[in-house]
């Protein structure tokens, strides 16, 4: 029995791939036997090596031929001229077969068209193992063996690879499937991961994305977020090392965020949505495992916060009265992007009585004043996640994104006498030299406005920032690219 381990270019002629477990293949089987005599076609069977009866058949037992020739359906007919594929017919189409073999009456009596059946090489039960077999050599990560009586979940905990919750074991099959979500090569380096300043390959990101529970279509978003947090501007090293309770807050924008099922509505900052939870978790696991940023080591947070497991959500762009945060930061509309912000846990602003934008802006400003400390201005940014019912108050009054931010700043001009050290019985505050000045709570671009949340509830959320700007962290927006497999 000849082997079908074909990786090289196909020889000139016609190649037909079939399986017995396919009614269309069975229907055309007598034709194939004839065509082998008359036209010398090569026949490959995925299952039964004696099918079609009476033909000389190459058994594609390991499906290598099918895999390397991208066979998705049987029968598939491939014509090769001068070493290059010139024609491919999928299924039975009388007129196309007639044309290829120059036999106008081929298959007389058969229906004009009959679709084929799924190729075994794309069988969902087999495809991951085949991908691992034929493409696994692309992966270079160390393979770690788990004892047969060792609980695999416990084995991953024991090696210190988790964030304290169970992770999906990153088998080769799962990692290769994850890599189908990006057109980047596994060996591509997309960032230098702090704190250990390790070259971050797509392969290592995919491994951690598997562990986090991602689907392949999330991977480009994970990669974009990691590119963003690994910039000098975002300063992931500092975000880890600080004793303050901050981590990367990842805001996803663009139609792709909806296509991958992200939540921008009810419970937007909470649990329950796989996409939101696992993208943020994959970023954190990658920083932990590849970058080496582990709590108690480089991560020195005094308290931390639950969002350091994962803090990722989508903007509600469709329901928003404003342009999105991404567009405000220079991204073209309808373009997929992530914005990362070094933030702490969210807190709620409740105002159920404001019916004018002025009233609501005043309430929001009063709460924004307390970010970090009411007497500490300019040092921290804030993300303001405005819920739809609050946004409606602004939208109905015609307040644009820019107007809302402007009105907030106007209400956050602090008198030096109120914020100098010792005033109002609080030692904390600014230096005495500011006593006669008016100081803005936030720097001009220090309020990041996002529209998200459930449709009922007159609430907004404030996510306080960490040391802002060049001394600490700058928000970074990164396009989501290389979507789809290679």
């Amino acid at each position, binding site marked *: 029995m000849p082997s079908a381990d074909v990786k090289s270019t196909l020889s000139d002629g016609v190649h037909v791939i079939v399986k017995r477990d396919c009614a269309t293949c069975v229907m055309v089987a007598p034709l194939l036997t004839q065509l082998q005599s008359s036209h010398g076609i090569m026949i490959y069977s995925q299952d039964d090596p004696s099918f079609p009866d009476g033909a000389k058949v190459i058994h594609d037992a390991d499906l290598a031929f099918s895999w390397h020739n991208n066979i998705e359906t049987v029968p598939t007919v491939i014509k090769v001229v001068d070493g290059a594929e010139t024609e491919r017919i999928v299924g039975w189409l009388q007129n196309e077969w007639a044309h290829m073999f120059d036999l106008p009456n081929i298959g007389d009596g058969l229906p004009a068209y009959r679709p084929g059946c799924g190729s075994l090489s794309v069988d969902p039960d087999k495809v991951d193992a085949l991908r691992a077999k034929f493409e696994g050599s692309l*992966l270079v*990560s*160390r*393979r*770690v*063996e*788990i*004892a*047969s*009586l*060792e609980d*695999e979940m416990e*084995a*991953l905990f*024991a*090696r210190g*690879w988790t964030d304290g919750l169970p992770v999906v*074991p*990153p*088998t*080769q099959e799962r*990692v290769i499937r994850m890599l189908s979500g990006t057109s980047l090569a596994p060996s591509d380096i997309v960032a230098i*991961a702090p704190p*250990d300043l*390790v070259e971050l390959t797509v392969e*290592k990101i995919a*491994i*951690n994305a598997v*562990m986090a529970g991602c689907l392949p279509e999330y991977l480009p978003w994970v990669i974009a977020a990691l590119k963003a947090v690994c910039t000098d501007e975002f300063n992931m090293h500092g975000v880890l090392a600080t004793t303050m309770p901050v981590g990367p807050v990842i805001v996803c924008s663009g139609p792709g965020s909806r296509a991958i099922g992200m939540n921008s509505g009810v419970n937007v900052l909470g649990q329950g949505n796989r996409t939101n939870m696992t993208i943020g978790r994959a970023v954190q*696991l990658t920083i932990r*495992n*590849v*970058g*080496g940023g582990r709590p108690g080591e480089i991560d020195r947070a005094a308290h931390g916060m639950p969002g350091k497991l994962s803090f990722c959500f989508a903007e509600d762009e469709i329901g928003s009265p404003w342009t999105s945060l991404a567009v405000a930061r220079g991204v073209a509309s309808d373009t997929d992007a992530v914005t990362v912000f070094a933030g702490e846990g969210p807190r709620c602003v409740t105002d159920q009585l404001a019916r004018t934008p002025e009233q609501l802006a005043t309430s929001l400003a009063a709460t924004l004043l307390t970010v970090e400390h009411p007497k500490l201005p300019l040092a921290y940014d804030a993300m303001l996640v405005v819920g739809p019912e609050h946004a409606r108050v602004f939208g109905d009054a015609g307040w644009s994104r820019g107007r809302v931010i402007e009105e907030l700043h106007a209400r956050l001009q602090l008198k030096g006498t109120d914020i100098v050290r010792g005033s109002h019985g609080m030692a904390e505050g600014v230096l005495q030299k500011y006593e006669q000045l008016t100081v803005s709570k936030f720097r001009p671009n220090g309020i990041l406005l996002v529209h998200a949340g459930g449709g009922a509830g007159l609430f907004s959320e404030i996510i306080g920032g960490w040391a802002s700007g060049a001394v600490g962290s700058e928000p970074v927006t990164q396009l989501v690219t290389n979507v789809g497999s290679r």
Partner: protein
Amino acid sequence: MTTINASRFVLDPTSEQNPSQRQILARPSSLKGLTVGLLDISKARGDVFLDQLERRLVGVGATVKRFRKPTFTKPAPVDLRHEIAISCNVVIEALAD
């Protein structure tokens, strides 16, 4: 019936700057009451030495469990390492030549 899985592997999610093996624990101050694994690496007459060692260990109050590698030319199989890890407090692996 328990089915023994074929070999299972996961891919290392780290930067691989550290060994994949975990660090060994500190040595205990006394062996009394502890379970000591004796790993015979399958070299000739190693068992003679280990028999002697077992008598000494039992004499100081240890419980001894004996293990054997299939061949001294290869590392201990992962399942054997796991069995030793979960059933012993201490292991003595020695070359007798």
